[in-house]
């Protein structure tokens, strides 16, 4: 195998270059996906070639152990971000019917960012219905945890109090405030 640093050939399976001592595969530990837009970038880039944002220095409290991020799949055709004021107003004037569509979109957005089908709309709908809304209290907490996880993975400052604040606001009947806050964090992750 050939060393990226000095070009010398080392025996297959070596961990370090036998000539210059550079570790093989070290470059693959570095960021290969832009934390802001998710586009593949050359290892060692300081700025994203697609969106131009800085790769090296995310602000605030981030996880320092992990620098490479899972690549994002193709974005879904349906929108994942939204206007919060519009969501709140539509939820109120439709007596909550629109709120279900809003929740479904938040679940799609977080599933997409996590790269896994963690939140299922129909499971949430069914459990919320049969528990007269009690399940939704837990769900809002669970959703907030998912958002914090995405913030960690993608190198955004983490909203560490978001889960407990979501829990309090949902218990005292203010789901709409919780969802507005969560949507704000989701929009921030998408750069809106």
């Amino acid at each position, binding site marked *: 195998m050939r060393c990226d640093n000095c070009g010398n050939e080392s025996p297959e399976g070596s961990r370090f270059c036998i000539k210059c001592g550079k570790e093989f595969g070290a470059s693959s530990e570095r960021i290969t996906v832009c934390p802001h837009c998710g586009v593949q970038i050359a290892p060692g880039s300081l700025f994203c070639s697609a969106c131009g944002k800085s790769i090296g220095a995310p602000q*605030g*409290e981030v996880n320092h152990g992990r620098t490479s991020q899972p690549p994002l799949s193709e974005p879904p055709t349906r929108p994942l971000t939204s206007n*919060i*004021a519009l969501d*709140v107003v539509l939820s109120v004037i439709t007596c909550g019917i629109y709120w279900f569509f809003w929740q479904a979109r938040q679940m799609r957005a977080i599933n997409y960012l996590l790269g896994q089908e963690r939140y299922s709309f129909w499971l949430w709908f069914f459990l919320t219905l049969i528990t*007269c*809304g*009690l399940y939704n209290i837990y769900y809002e907490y669970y959703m907030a945890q998912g958002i914090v996880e995405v913030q960690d993975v993608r190198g955004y*400052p*983490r*909203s*560490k*109090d*978001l889960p*407990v*604040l979501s*829990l*309090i606001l949902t*218990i*005292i*009947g*203010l789901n709409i*405030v919780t969802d*507005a*806050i969560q949507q*704000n964090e989701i929009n921030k992750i998408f750069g809106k």
Partner: protein
Amino acid sequence: MDHYLIPRKIASGFAACLLILAGMHAAGILPAARLAGAIPVFCPFELLTGIPCPGCGMTRAVLCLVSGNPSDALLYNPFSFFLLTLITASILPRRWLKRVPTGVRAMLPPAYAVILGLVIAFWIFDRLLPALAA
């Protein structure tokens, strides 16, 4: 990182809604006090179990607040005051929070856990047990 409050944009939106409601009450368009006494139960939990949930009374409490009647708001749902405080604190400039004495600020991080405990204790002792005893 600072203690997490409601993002300012959202807090301002809700504060504006409250001010508009208060303005409508002041102008006599919204009979807030009368409405507060006439709102039917629409909480699915209370409809099914007959026990008020911790959020029951929040609409009436907010109506009392905008009509300038904080004592009734406290009776309907004491956490309407928590909501009001949270929204106000979220709108205030962040640098004001930095002027809060360190002794007080040291108590802030567990504040949400304490409030969560209060909400649950309030529900059990003020609503669940009386409803079960009745």
